[in-house]
């Protein structure tokens, strides 16, 4: 099956998932009501038997913003994951490897503990994003000091070190400020609950720009998977690419983590699925991962909201619970193919 056909199917699945995410939730709403509300909103039609205000609120103000946010978050995390894996030449790398999520969580922790709000609703995301980016830059800066060639092992090591340091700081903050501990812990688990359309519009430019820039560098990323030496002698400016793509990944992940908290696994796992289905060429893998990431995240969020309704499970728990077995299955499958 050609890739174009596969893309069409993928896009259809994404649309389906979004429809499901709007139509299904912890409160059951009749499909005809859902349809009425959406059509009415789009075309400004008023129906004879109008739907209750609260139902309209649920659909338009709770579910739609939430589904859209989940989709772009999943897409952004997936694209970030692709970049990390290719640049670091490591199929197990993720945007969290460099410490961006620990950094962002630390930034957010400061805001929560010190009860900062001088930027209004932007305080938490801005602090989180800035802290995340600073952490990655520190990792890269120290790595380049230690290893002028900025080899991948050095980057991963310094990233891990800063990540662990940030985590330690968060633990200290939690123990010193126990009344906020619950909020900090929950924030680290990631959730799309109580998010507004504003959050979606804030993240969207990051994800779109990030994906476009990544796609523009898809050829270089392909070549970088052969390793620094081969990439360099093929004409790729490896150092420049590493700084660009790793920073881009950090910004992308940092932005998403600042709004939705830490949601793991999507960025590790969706690039692999994308490569399986579409081949390894980044020209396809990047957009495919974005779509798959969105699809996966929306589905997980749907499960998070409905599995034990009206209770909600943090979405990060679902992504790992669903993703991990699937990942193992992929791995085993691959092994068998190789042996044959």
């Amino acid at each position: 099956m050609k890739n174009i056909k596969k893309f069409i199917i993928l896009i259809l699945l994404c649309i389906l998932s979004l429809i499901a995410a709007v139509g299904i939730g912890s409160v059951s709403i009749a499909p005809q009501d859902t349809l009425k509300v959406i059509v009415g909103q789009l075309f400004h039609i008023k129906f004879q038997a109008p739907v209750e205000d609260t139902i309209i609120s649920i659909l338009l103000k709770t579910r739609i913003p939430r589904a859209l946010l989940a989709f772009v978050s999943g897409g952004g995390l997936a694209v970030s994951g692709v970049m990390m894996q290719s640049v670091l030449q490591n199929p197990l790398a993720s945007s969290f490897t460099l410490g961006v999520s620990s950094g962002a969580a630390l930034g957010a922790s400061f805001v929560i503990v010190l009860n900062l709000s001088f930027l209004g609703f932007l305080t938490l995301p801005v602090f989180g994003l800035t802290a995340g980016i600073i952490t990655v830059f520190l990792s890269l800066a120290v790595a380049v000091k230690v290893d002028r060639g900025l080899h991948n092992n050095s980057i991963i090591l310094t990233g891990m070190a800063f990540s662990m340091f940030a985590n330690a700081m968060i633990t200290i903050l939690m123990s010193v400020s126990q009344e906020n501990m619950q909020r900090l812990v929950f924030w680290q688990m990631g959730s799309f609950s109580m998010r507004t359309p504003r959050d979606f519009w804030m993240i969207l430019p990051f994800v779109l720009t990030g994906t476009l820039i990544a796609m523009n560098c898809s050829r270089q990323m392909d070549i970088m998977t052969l390793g620094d030496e081969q990439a360099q002698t093929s004409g790729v400016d490896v150092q420049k690419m590493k700084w660009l793509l790793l920073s881009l990944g950090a910004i992308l992940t940092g932005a998403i983590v600042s709004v939705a908290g830490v949601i793991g696994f999507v960025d590790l796992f969706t690039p692999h699925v994308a490569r399986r289905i579409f081949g390894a060429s980044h020209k396809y893998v990047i957009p495919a991962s974005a779509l798959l990431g969105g699809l996966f995240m929306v589905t997980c969020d749907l499960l998070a909201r409905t599995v034990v309704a009206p209770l909600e499970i943090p979405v990060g728990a679902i992504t790992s619970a669903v993703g991990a077995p699937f990942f193992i299955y992929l791995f085993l499958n691959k092994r068998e193919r190789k042996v044959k």
Partner: protein
Amino acid sequence: MKNKFRKYLLVFLSSVMVLTTSACAGNEAASRSNRSSSTSQTSQSASTAKEEKTIKDREGNDFVLPEHSDKIISMAPAITQTIVDLGLADKLVAVDKYSLPIDGVDQSLPAYDIMAPDVESISSLKPDIIFTTGMSKSGGEDPFKPITDLGLLMTSIPSASSLDDIKKDILFIGQVTKTEKSAKKLVADMESKINDLQNKVDKDAPAKTVYFEIGESPNLVSIGNGTYLNEIIEMLGAKNIFSDQDGWVSVSEESVLDKNPDIIFTNIDYMDDPVSDIFNRNGWDAINAVKNKQVFLIDPNASSQPNAHVVTAIEQMAKVLYPDSFK
């Protein structure tokens, strides 16, 4: 002559050794059976001049009341408040961090961390009784075990899940601190105030639906069946929209929207204006409570600490539900 003396010396020394070891063993046995180290030295039966009374503690275990309760440590603000109410504030030798702000508590008292109490420091204070909530045990390991191992007297009062529990907690504290009379009076006051408030309930009015929010970030948290807040709501003739759930529950925004409560209470204290936060929530303007501006802040301490002051919370809630009865 020398040999005989040596024999007598040996016998004398060994009998001294035997006596001292049995005394020590007696002491250990005494501490293991939860006696304060400052009291009895032998494991003799109860037919001595000192009377020891055994009651059930708030976890349902046998508990031997201490001789004295002149040095009290409280590791929970709800309990500290009760101790202050019973007029025993001057008997406190240490509290937990969150108890310091309570009116009547000496600000110079050492204040410890509930989850990681400083064992050395606590034992050096030689308290007669330590009150905890048992919440610290929730991690699996009991951080207070080293303290009880040292022979100090400790009792856990689990978080009250009903008004009756609150009353029993107060009476228990009264018994332990030998202020039964004050405790009974405190409970009687509570009961009479609650009765008064119950009389304000308009039995003919249709039950209003209530959503009580105790947490909002990142997920909404409310209370269900088996909490005293739920009991209060029902007692006041209203209906808790989550009474079909148990305990503390993390609920979805949708479910609150769907149940469309008439009244919303919040007792969140980490925000400047939780009521405005609720009014500004995306899509919540469709809820009756928001439409009719029926969103209220209930005193956080009164509603989240299980002691006699819960009456303040009940009063606030009653005033909202039946404003006419208070004119």
